[in-house]
C-alpha cells in the first residue's frame, strides 16, 4: 500500500538496525548497584529478553519494552511491526502478553492521520495477541519512534531463559533471516515489491503461534532473534548456557534475495556492530561464505524464535511448527563448551 508519507525517510536507521550494540550496552551497565530479590527470576545480568518477577508460586510477571524508528512507509504496517516486535520478547520467555503501553515520539509536522494509523497498527496487533493497550506516553522529537512496553504472565517454573541450553539440544529457528539487508537495499530501490511485501508480512507476524507450540515441548532455552542478529543472540545463549552452539548454515532459513545484495555491500551498519560484538566467539568454517556470514550478523526486526530442546523432541516440534510456519527449521545443535562459543559449518 502506497501512502503520501515517506516514513522511512524520516529515520536515519531502520527498525532494529537502530539498536545500540550489545557490547556498548554491557559496558555502560557495569558496576551499577541493584537490589537483590529472590522473586526476581530474570534480571539484566543475563542479557535476557525480558525481566521476570514471581508474584506468587504460580504466576510470574514478565516485563519488556521495544521501540524503533519507521522500517516501512505505511504507518499502519509500521505500527503492527513495532507492536509484534515488542511483544516478541514476552513470547521468547514462554509467556503470554496481557497489558501494553504505547511509547511514541512524533515530529511536530507529522499529520494526525499518520499518527493515528501507527497507533491503529499497534492496537490491531495487540488485539490479535490477546493483549490490551491501556495508555502510553507520546512526545515530540526529530525522528518518529513507536513501540510498546509490554507486561505478560507465565508460570515461574515455565520461564524460558536464553541461558538454559544444554548439550544434546537441537536448535530451531522460526523465521527466515535477511530482513535487515533487504530493508537497507529497499532504501536504494533494489528490492522488488513482492519480496518487500513478503518481508513486511513476516515482520508483522506475531511469534504467538511459535510460542504456543513451543510450550508443549520440553524446551530448555529460547530467545527471539532481533537487533543482535542470529549470531549475536546465539552468542548470548551460548555464553549464558556455558555451552557451544553449532550452526549448519546450509539449514538456516533466509530470504534468498538477501544473498546477492549482501555480496553487493547492501549491509546495514548494525550488521557490522554485531560482527564487532560476536566475531570473537565465532569460528567460521572455510565453506561459509562472507555473504552468508553477513546474513547471520544481519539485524532482524521482529525476527523469529530461536529455541533449544532435546534432539529427540526436535523433529516432532518442528513438524508441528511447520504446519503453521513452513519456514521453521532445525539449524544446529548444542554441545558442551569447546574452544569457541559458536561454530559455523556448511
Amino acid at each position: 500500500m502506497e501512502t503520501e508519507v515517506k516514513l522511512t525517510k524520516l529515520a536515519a536507521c531502520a527498525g532494529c538496525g537502530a539498536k545500540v550494540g550489545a557490547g556498548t550496552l554491557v559496558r555502560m551497565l557495569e558496576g551499577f548497584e541493584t537490589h537483590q530479590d529472590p522473586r526476581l527470576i530474570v534480571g539484566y545480568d543475563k542479557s535476557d529478553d525480558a525481566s521476570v518477577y514471581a508474584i506468587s508460586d504460580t504466576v510470574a510477571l514478565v516485563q519488556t519494552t521495544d521501540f524503533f524508528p519507521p522500517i516501512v512507509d505505511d504507518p499502519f504496517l509500521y505500527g503492527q511491526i513495532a507492536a509484534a516486535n515488542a511483544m516478541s520478547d514476552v513470547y521468547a520467555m514462554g509467556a503470554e502478553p496481557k497489558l501494553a503501553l504505547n511509547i511514541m515520539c512524533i515530529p511536530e509536522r507529522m499529520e494526525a492521520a499518520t499518527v493515528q494509523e501507527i497507533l491503529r497498527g499497534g492496537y490491531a496487533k495487540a488485539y490479535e495477541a490477546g493483549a490490551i493497550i491501556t495508555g502510553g506516553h507520546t512526545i515530540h522529537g526529530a525522528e518518529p519512534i513507536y513501540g510498546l512496553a509490554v507486561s505478560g504472565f507465565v508460570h515461574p517454573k515455565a520461564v524460558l531463559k536464553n541461558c538454559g541450553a544444554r548439550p544434546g539440544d537441537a536448535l530451531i529457528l522460526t523465521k527466515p533471516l535477511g530482513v535487515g539487508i533487504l530493508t537497507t537495499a529497499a532504501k536504494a530501490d533494489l528490492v522488488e515489491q513482492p519480496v518487500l511485501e513478503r518481508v513486511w508480512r513476516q515482520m508483522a507476524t506475531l511469534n504467538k503461534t511459535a510460542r504456543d507450540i513451543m510450550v508443549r515441548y520440553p524446551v530448555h532455552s529460547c530467545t527471539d532473534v532481533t537487533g543482535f542478529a542470529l549470531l549475536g543472540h546465539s552468542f548470548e545463549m551460548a555464553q549464558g548456557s556455558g555451552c557451544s552452539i553449532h550452526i549448519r548454515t546450509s539449514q538456516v532459513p533466509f530470504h534468498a534475495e538477501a544473498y546477492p545484495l549482501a555480496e553487493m555491500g547492501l549491509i546495514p551498519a548494525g550488521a557490522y556492530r554485531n560482527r564487532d560484538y560476536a566475531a570473537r566467539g565465532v569460528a567460521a568454517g572455510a565453506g561459509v561464505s562472507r555473504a552468508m556470514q553477513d546474513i547471520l550478523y544481519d539485524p532482524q526486526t521482529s525476527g523469529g524464535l530461536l529455541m533449544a530442546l532435546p534432539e529427540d523432541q526436535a523433529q516432532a516440534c518442528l513438524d508441528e511448527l511447520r504446519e503453521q510456519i513452513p519456514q521453521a527449521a532445525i539449524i544446529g545443535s548444542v554441545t558442551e563448551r569447546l574452544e569457541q562459543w559458536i561454530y559455523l559449518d556448511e
Partner: protein
Amino acid sequence: MKTLDARGLSCPEPVVLLRNAMAAGEQAYQILVDNPASRENVTRYAEHQGYHVTCTEQDGEYTLSIVK
C-alpha cells in the same frame, strides 16, 4: 577521476551515490566516507562491480580509491 563525498551519509546512501556515479561510466573514482560500515559496503560494491579498491584513513575518515 570523479570524487564523491559520502561523509555524513548512512548506509546504503554511500553505495547508492557510487552506483549512480558508475552509471555514468567513469573508469576511476575517489569516495570519502566517515564510518567503517560505509567503508566496507562501498568497498564490497566496487569490488563486486569489478573495480580494485585501496583505502587510506585519516582522523576517522576514509578515502577509497576505486579503479578498474
